């Protein structure tokens, strides 16, 4: 989508693309605009005719002219009506084109937001992304408001130029002097305007970003009483935006009167040249007057062009900012592979898997998160992944849901490379539950099914209740007056951290995944509830689901057949808990660290198990 070439070329392509996307609308808009041009001339002609042929002779006593008074009224009325209709049509279709083009850009942007990988999202602040769909989309399409007007009234320019040449080539040339002047003025304008507008749009994004982040931090701001500091931070960015907008305004303020006065300047030139031509007897004095009149006819179209030219720098900047997103690649390519139908769990294999990420901090470059991971998880097994912070646990398990792809090596699901599977195939068989839960502004039911009611394959209410039961959230939901229809999110009931995690687990279970990946998904859930959930999974039919979980609690680890000890991006050891305790000193240290701390606290008169949530106990 990115525009290339000279600024003129980019401008033309931008406008052409927008019009080509909605050809019908623009044909109608430009036609209406052309009719408007014709009618503008028509009105003055009609008034001239009515004055000369009707009013003046009628007053002078011409009976025939008196009979024509009504006719003059009707003609003028008809012209007025046509003119008004042409204006209505022009504005309406131009408005349609603008609305449609802006909607196209919004669709293109949001399609990308949904397509691009999580890593891309982490690198792009939410405030900026939201701003692309409003401010930048509006900037990119602003030019489409005056464009049909300008194109339609080109007819007026052509007519005027042809008539000028038929009067006298020298006069015509004198009149046309304003065109190169316009081009020069516009070149200068664009040179000053482009950087100014680029900066303004960038700052608009920054303002949105500061606001978004600061509103997210609202509770912290209140807690520390830093409202004043946040205000100062926002005011600084808003102040920069203000300065940038004023800069844009100043450039425009100087350019606008220049463009608007060009026809008048042209008229003066024509008069000067006309006097010379008339003095030498080459043209009649009346011809000079006609030429001057024809130039005033160009005022309207030139003004419309001025608007288009005025909007172009902003449009290009907005368009470029949108293009950056729309052209961003990195979305995962899908193959055509299908996972064989089966009721059993999914077999998983990592082959020499390595993952690098780009670092954007002080030292740029890449950082290796995983290296040389070989791992085989048989179908139906329950595996715990254990390791210190930064060991690469989250990176490892997120590969299973294909949130990203490994830099090196392969991840095989039932023997098929995850990259070769068709789109939608992985989510249909694999469910990943992360520590954080995003609650949609929707009903409980929709938050579990993530489907619309009656949508193909959407789970029944019984299945939803069953998933809620397994996630131990059914009692909470049953207590809501609206049950499954109870709204969640901003305007609805709010869930505690643990409840949110259980909602996420229900969300995963309702899809009956063959591979369930729990990335520290029960951290805020009471350990006994966690145990109940995990046991519930097992009773669902052992072997039906392969479970891979990142765990911090030894009680969860105890449920796993196999433990994978991960450290510094590599697998240290794999085996049952007891074996690892016996042969892997690093694991032993890790496993006992928690216990040791608990004991220390016990000696200090504190409790052994710090995991208990009081509210759960009290229930």
């Amino acid at each position, binding site marked *: 989508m990115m525009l290339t070439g000279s600024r003129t070329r980019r401008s033309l392509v931008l406008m052409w693309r927008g019009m080509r996307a909605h050809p019908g609308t623009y044909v109608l808009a430009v036609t209406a605009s052309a009719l408007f041009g014709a009618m503008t001339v028509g*009105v003055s002609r009609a008034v001239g005719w*009515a004055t000369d042929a*009707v009013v003046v002779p009628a*007053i002078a006593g011409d009976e025939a002219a008196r009979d024509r*008074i009504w006719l003059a*009224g009707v003609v003028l009325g008809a012209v*007025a009506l046509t*003119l008004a209709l042409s*204006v*209505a049509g022009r504005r309406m279709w131009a408005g349609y084109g603008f609305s*449609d083009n*802006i909607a196209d850009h919004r669709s293109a942007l949001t399609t990308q937001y949904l*397509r691009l990988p*999580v890593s891309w999202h982490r690198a792009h*602040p*939410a405030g900026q992304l939201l701003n692309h769909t409003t*401010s930048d989309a*509006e900037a990119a399409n602003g030019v489409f408001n005056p464009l049909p007007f300008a194109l339609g009234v080109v007819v007026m320019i052509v007519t005027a130029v042809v008539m000028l040449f038929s009067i006298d080539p020298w006069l015509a040339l004198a009149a046309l002097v304003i065109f190169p002047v316009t081009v020069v003025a516009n070149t200068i304008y664009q040179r000053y305007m482009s950087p100014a507008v680029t900066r303004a749009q960038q700052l608009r994004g920054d*303002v*949105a970003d500061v606001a978004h982040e600061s*509103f*997210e931090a*609202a*509770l912290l701001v*209140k807690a*520390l*009483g*830093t409202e004043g500091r*946040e205000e100062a931070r*926002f*005011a600084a960015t*808003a102040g920069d935006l*203000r300065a940038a907008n004023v800069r844009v305004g*100043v450039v425009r303020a100087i350019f606008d009167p220049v463009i608007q006065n060009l026809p008048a300047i042209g008229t*003066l030139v024509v008069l*000067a040249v006309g006097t010379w031509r*008339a003095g030498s007897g080459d043209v009649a004095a009346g011809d000079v*007057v006609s030429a001057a009149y024809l130039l005033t006819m160009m005022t309207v179209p030139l003004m419309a062009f001025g608007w288009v030219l005025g909007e172009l720098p902003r449009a290009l900047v907005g368009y470029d900012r949108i293009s950056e997103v729309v052209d961003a690649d990195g979305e995962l390519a899908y193959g055509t592979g299908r996972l064989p139908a089966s009721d059993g769990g999914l077999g998983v294999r990592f082959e020499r898997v390595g993952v690098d990420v780009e670092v954007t*901090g*002080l030292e740029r470059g890449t950082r290796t998160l995983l290296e040389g991971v070989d791992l085989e998880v048989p179908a139906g097994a329950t595996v715990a992944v254990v390791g*210190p912070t930064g060991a690469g646990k989250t990176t490892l398990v997120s590969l299973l849901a294909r949130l990203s792809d490994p830099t090196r090596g392969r991840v095989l699901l039932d023997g098929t490379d995850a990259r070769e599977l068709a789109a939608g195939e*992985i*989510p249909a068989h694999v469910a990943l539950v992360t*520590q954080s839960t*995003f609650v949609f*502004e929707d009903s409980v039911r929709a938050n579990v099914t*993530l489907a619309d009611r009656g949508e193909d394959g959407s789970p029944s209410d019984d299945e939803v209740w069953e998933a809620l039961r397994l996630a131990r959230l059914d009692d909470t939901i049953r207590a809501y007056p609206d049950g499954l229809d109870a709204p969640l999110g*901003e305007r609805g009931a*709010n*869930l505690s*951290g643990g409840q*949110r995690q259980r909602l996420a687990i229900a*969300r995963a279970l309702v899809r009956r995944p063959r591979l369930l990946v729990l990335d520290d998904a029960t951290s805020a859930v009471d350990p006994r509830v966690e145990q109940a959930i995990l046991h519930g999974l097992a009773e669902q039919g052992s072997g039906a689901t392969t479970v891979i979980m990142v765990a*911090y609690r030894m009680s969860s680890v105890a449920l796993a057949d196999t433990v994978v000890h991960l450290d510094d991006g590599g697998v240290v050891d794999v085996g049952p808990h007891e074996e690892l305790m016996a042969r892997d000193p690093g694991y032993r240290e890790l496993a006992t*660290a928690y216990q040791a701390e608990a004991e220390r606290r016990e000696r200090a008169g*504190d*409790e*052994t198990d710090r995991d*208990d949530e*009081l509210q759960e106990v009290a229930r």
Partner: protein
Amino acid sequence: MSATTAEPGISEDELDANGARIESVSSLGVFATLRRGVQLSPEMLNGVWITLALAVLAAGGKVVVPLAVQRTIDDGILAEGGPDAGRVVTLAALAAVGLVLAGVCAALVNVRLFRSTEAGLATLRTRAFRHVHDLSTLTQNTERRGALVARVTNDVDTISLFVQWGGIMLLVSVLQILVATALMAWYSPVLTVVVWVCFVPMFLFMRVGQRKVNAAYTLVRERVGAMLGAISESVVGAETVRAYGVSARTGRRISQAVEATRRAQRRSMELVAIVFSSGVFVANLVLAVVVVLGAWLGIGGALSAGEIVAFLFLVQLFTGPVQMGTEILNEMQNAVAGWRRVIAVVETPVEVTEAPDAVDLPRGPARVTLRDVRFAYSGGPDVLHGVSLDLPPRTKVAVVGQTGSGKTTIAKLVTRLMDPVEGTVELDGTDLRKVSFASLRERVVLVPQEGFLFDGTVLENAAYGLRNGTRPTTPDDAGEVRAAVSDAFAELGLSDWVETLPDGLDTQVGQRGEALSAGERQLVAIARAYLAAPDLLVLDEATSAVDPAAEVRIARALDSLTAGRSTITIAHRLSTAEAADLVVVVDAGEIVETGPHAELAAAGGIYSRMHASWVSQTR
């Protein structure tokens, strides 16, 4: 997206369901909106009279120049005895001077307008932003922040278009209309009355039309807000959308929102086209009426043919600004729609305000007293029924109770996120409502469950707790800040952890701190609270389990943080209660037990039952 993880307990319990809401639009009428809008941005009126005078000069230039051209033609080119070159040059030069002067005036008007409106709008943005922070409503879910961000970005932008151009042009147009009317009346009072009568139905129609246009624009603003909410699902919830493979459905929801916005926009464009073109129609229809009526009046001898011709010219001087006025009024509806949404934010009453006679309290160990405190959310039942409590200085207090018991409400009252309905909350014997915000936030700091981190370095985030410094500005300052932060981490026993970070204190934490683990985020939050150095610490205990090593660090750091301070912990773990000096048991809005753990555990009340049940379940 993990900002929404375990949602901060304080934010979610009760407040959201009942707290004040920000209206989607203010209910002010058009003129009240404009008045209020200008009141909120007084800079807009800076030097408005000079600007207006310049605008009149610029507009005058538009009339003078055609007149000069006219004279050049009549007296120069069509001069008796052939074109008079000398006269033409003189007149053309005069006209050119007039052009330049008018152009300069126009440019000055534009520059002045840009300066004053951008200054006013920056103020408005900042004011709305600050007000959002002052409202406790902001402690809501993060999912729909996008819509709130629009109020300080896009909605404000909408206003600028109109103000930078429309406000002044409206006044100039009215002036032109008055002048034209006076001139017309001089030629023919009868025809003037007729012209005005013709416009009466138009004005009536416009009033209705404009109301509809306004409603349509308001709908567009609302739809854009809703659309941003939908889009933020794909941005903030990117990980969830991918993990569950629900791109299609999310995409559908966004498409619907984009389509709804498009339709609303098209509708607004249609209405504007109709209203505007009806103005065009009447303006041109008037010509027909004047021709017919003028001819009859002429025949009756009331008018000469010359007077009718002059009158027709004047009518066009009259209808020009009338059409311009229609256009401006349409634009104004858009601005009013944006303004209303911003004003709605600013007009939402702040529940907790600083008293005019608020005092600063001296620093020192904090004593907290609640006297017969009753609290209820607006329109809701009592959450606390007359609670009294006295917490001596340097005491570690644990508040326990079930979800909904009112324990979180106590924390919110003590930190004055809300005020009691009856009774008082006192800090060292002074009603909190009489304590200045600066003093209160200096002495009392709330540490939410989930520490929010800003996109920046560990250093910047910890330094956020420092009271006077904002961000390091001068190198000296920066050195001091760095030393203070470094000391804080050392005091908290976290220096070794900082050393494990890739760039130490300069490690980037990413958006919302996502580059760090949940436990690491808590560590930074603790350092931040430590640097805030409060006399009273109110902790909303985190419920999430983190990896054992981090858990140990957090426990130690919390010990150092609370040492020697009064602390109130909203405890979710019974172990925390055991370690406290004083346990406060809240049940159904009443304080049912107060005392040391050992005493209460043996007392045979609610606490002993909780404790017994917990012991039996964990051992």
